[in-house]
């Protein structure tokens, strides 16, 4: 168990990078992610994002907004080098929407599930269990896909360019 804790501590920066990548990408190309196995997962950052700088929680910025893509505060924090430590995302998986709160250790803090189809209480529990599994599988697949990009210099360089371009783009005002 302590091996896993050490590994988690060592990889913490990758969790922040992944959430930041997810956050920015959710505003690009309608937030769609195409995975290597052909699956498509829609991701939209919404309502709440917490960003941390090098000092950790002591210099964190928490932004709550119905339109995070238009949040100047979140964008400034990112430009200052802060990374996403906790975010609320809407995941569209197999045509259904799941609202999740995900932290930098990739622990899912909560999930709002779509309406259940089962009627029997025990079958509803099974359905909840399976639906949570779909969300965890999506997080795992997205993270492994991110890691592949992250380790490929040319692909990662392209990602970084896209993220920088988004950060430099003007905030759309309605």
């Amino acid at each position, binding site marked *: *168990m302590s091996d*896993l*804790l050490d*590994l*988690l501590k*060592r*990889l*913490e*920066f*990758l*969790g922040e*990078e992944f959430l*930041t990548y997810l956050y*920015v990408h959710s505003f690009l190309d309608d937030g769609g992610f195409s995975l290597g196995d052909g699956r498509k997962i829609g991701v939209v950052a919404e309502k709440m994002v917490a960003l941390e700088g090098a000092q950790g929680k002591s210099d964190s910025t928490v932004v709550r907004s119905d339109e995070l893509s238009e949040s100047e505060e979140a964008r*400034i924090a*990112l*430009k*200052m*080098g*802060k*990374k996403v430590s906790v975010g609320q995302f809407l995941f569209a998986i197999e045509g259904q*929407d799941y*609202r999740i709160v995900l932290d930098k*250790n*990739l*622990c*899912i*803090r*909560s*999930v*709002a*599930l*779509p*309406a*259940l189809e089962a009627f029997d209480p*025990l079958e509803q*529990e*099974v359905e*909840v*269990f399976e639906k*949570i*599994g779909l969300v*965890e599988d999506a*997080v*795992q697949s997205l*993270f*492994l896909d991110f*890691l592949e990009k*992250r*380790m490929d210099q040319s692909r990662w360089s392209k990602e*970084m360019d896209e*993220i*920088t371009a988004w*950060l*430099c783009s003007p905030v759309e005002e309605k």
Partner: protein
Amino acid sequence: MGNRVTFVTYRVSEIPSEDEIFEGIVRGKIGKVDLALGKDKTCGFASFQNPLSTDFSKEDLFFQGLVFVSFRIDRYVVPTCTLRLYVKERIESILKESGRQRIRKEEKEEIADNVRKSLLSKALPAINAYKVIWDIEKRVLRLFCTSRAVRDDFEAWTHEFLGITLSPFNMATIVKDGLGQNMMQKVLHLLPVNFGLGQ
């Protein structure tokens, strides 16, 4: 959209047989609190559908390849203000009976302890039951609670009675399960990037 759930998902170290799981759950069922020994808390397994019951049957525990059980924690609590009033009453009664003016600190502590035990024996426990669902074959278990203290009790209890070790689903388990040794080494050599614009 509704039905917001909080939980922790674990990877389970082993795949025990249904018989081993059943026996472990029966052995680890919640028992009575031993108040005489000064304990005020107990924990253990209880029925999923009715957490007040510890009568297990395989039909109740196993459904569609999953294990359904509750992890229950009973805690006896005497509110501080209630305890203070009863201790005060007891001390006044002792002083009156003995004709003394004061009572020693050690004696006061002993009285408070006895009064607390006496009140605990009359109290009803605060019962909290947390749902547990376990996919045996996939080695995935979910505890529908995120409290650190509850998780610690649950992890220790399952280890003691089911002989399993639980590792929470997080980035470390994703990397360990999802990457080969070569990829893992590459990941461990990555350095942080800066998305900022140097402002």
